């Protein structure tokens, strides 16, 4: 396995693995991030994992570019086999069964040639994985959808998607952490807040988290939403 080092200005270097979206390549990215952190490489400030790359921020007054790349390169073989710390498992309650919340469930099912019930069953029974967090505060890029649910993104993106919307697009799922435009088919909504600037810990999910979507009805959705608002709800994290 080889990586490419690409300068991203004078404060960061991009470490690139194979050009593909896969759990395997992404696992190496997260393993490299873990190893850099564990070894405490001199000069490293922070790192941002993505599908197949790690952007490493460094302090050039503490570490030169060549030396930093060389010490990262030494960790790459180890990233191949490194055992990551056990992932957290986060339960995401999701109300699929209300057309107001899952407003594209019926259309997505039709497009996929499945019944709505079958689509919900496949989505909620799968083991999902957070590849990385990005684009918006606390927003996860999620792998693990069964192949039958692969679907092209919306031809015309929505201008507004409510926060908490759970959608599918391509081979991925998504949970909108803040209200934003979007191109995923919205199947349902979670009452959890993935980003809550007033909370003690504003961001719920982390890169590498395992996710399960638990099917809830509208009544339970409203109950959890009220508890989330009152900050009394404790997400189920194993």
């Amino acid at each position, binding site marked *: 396995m080889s990586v490419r080092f*690409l*300068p*991203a*200005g*004078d*404060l*960061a270097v*991009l470490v*690139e693995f194979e*050009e*593909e*979206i896969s759990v395997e390549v992404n696992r190496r990215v997260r393993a490299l*991030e873990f190893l850099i952190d564990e070894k405490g490489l001199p000069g490293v*400030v*922070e*790192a*941002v*994992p*993505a*599908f*197949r*790359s*790690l*952007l490493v*921020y460094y302090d*050039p*007054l503490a570490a*030169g*570019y060549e030396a930093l790349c060389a010490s990262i390169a030494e960790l790459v073989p180890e990233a191949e086999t490194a055992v990551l710390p056990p992932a957290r498992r986060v339960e995401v309650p999701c109300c699929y069964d209300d057309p107001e919340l899952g407003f594209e469930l019926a259309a997505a099912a039709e497009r996929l040639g499945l019944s709505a019930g079958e689509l919900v069953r496949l989505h909620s029974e799968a083991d999902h994985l957070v590849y*990385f*967090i*990005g*684009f*918006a*505060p*606390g*927003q996860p*890029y999620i792998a693990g959808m069964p192949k039958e649910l692969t679907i092209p993104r919306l031809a015309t993106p929505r201008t507004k998607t409510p926060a908490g919307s759970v959608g599918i697009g391509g081979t991925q799922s998504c949970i909108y*952490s*803040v209200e934003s435009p979007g191109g995923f088919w919205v199947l349902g909504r979670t009452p959890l807040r993935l*980003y809550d*600037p007033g909370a003690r810990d*504003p*961001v719920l999910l*982390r*890169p590498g988290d395992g996710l399960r979507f638990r099917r809830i009805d509208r009544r339970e959705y409203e109950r959890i939403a009220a508890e989330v608002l009152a900050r009394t709800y404790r997400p189920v994290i194993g």
Partner: protein
Amino acid sequence: MIGILEPGALTTVQDLGRFRQLRYGIPPSGPVDRYAFVLANRLVGNPDGAAALECTLIGPRLEAHAPCAIAVAGADMPVSLNGHEAPGWATLVLKPGDVVKLGAARSGVRGYLAFSGGIDVPVVMGSRSTYLRGGLGGLEGRALRKGDRVRLCAAPLPRPWRVARHAVPVYEGERTIRVVLGPQADRFTEKGIATLLGSPYEMLPQSDRMGARLRGEPIAHSRGHDILSDGIAPGSIQVPGDGQPIVLLTDRQSTGGYTKVGTVCSFDIGRLGQMRPGQSLRFRAVGVGEAHQLLRDAEAALGSDLRENIA
């Protein structure tokens, strides 16, 4: 305590930024022009990272409720103290009841107003900086409003300082902005790179703390403008399908899926952030090693820019 009589166009609390949160999608925030911000703090005897105000285009009017020292640096905003003209880039001592006003910037965009002791707002995720889009940090996650009261951390009054005349930046005229090519320079044609480095680009009014939007000769891609999303470094020059560059600044998204032709050097991001709509720039490529040498020079110069202000 400081009372805000008029907030100005867009005034936020910033410190040097929020670190180690990009992996959760939280940008660093902090001042767009770090150079002017640090000098403002040093003029009032603060550590470089004390929280101060970033004032955009039109500054605030405020009243001191206790003795303190202030300093204004960055954009050339006329400073008045109780209605009389007062100098920028120098320590000013305020008594209770003194009223300070920062007017409309004559050049530059972002002025920095530091207070001895620094602004005392809660530290959120390791920083006092305001992240406006995320409603995080600063004063309730928002810009200042009329009637706000801002607390200061206790500190003794500093000795008066001023910034040496040669170190006060000139913000007017065409700028040269140094860039390191990449990380996706190979996704552009040779002609595209030549365009980036050979033609002027104009600052657009849609620019903000997230990104500076530029307009000029379109930069040609070699194989599409989409990539697998990856991390976005400060100063990244993102080029979407229309070929028009966007330079990502301190409130940028943590990751994105557009090609990045180059990255503005950290020491030139503040100079770019002080450019007004309609002003133009030219990019010049430097290698990483040269960029690091220029950064060391800039840091060293910053240390020698203050003079004791003996009237």
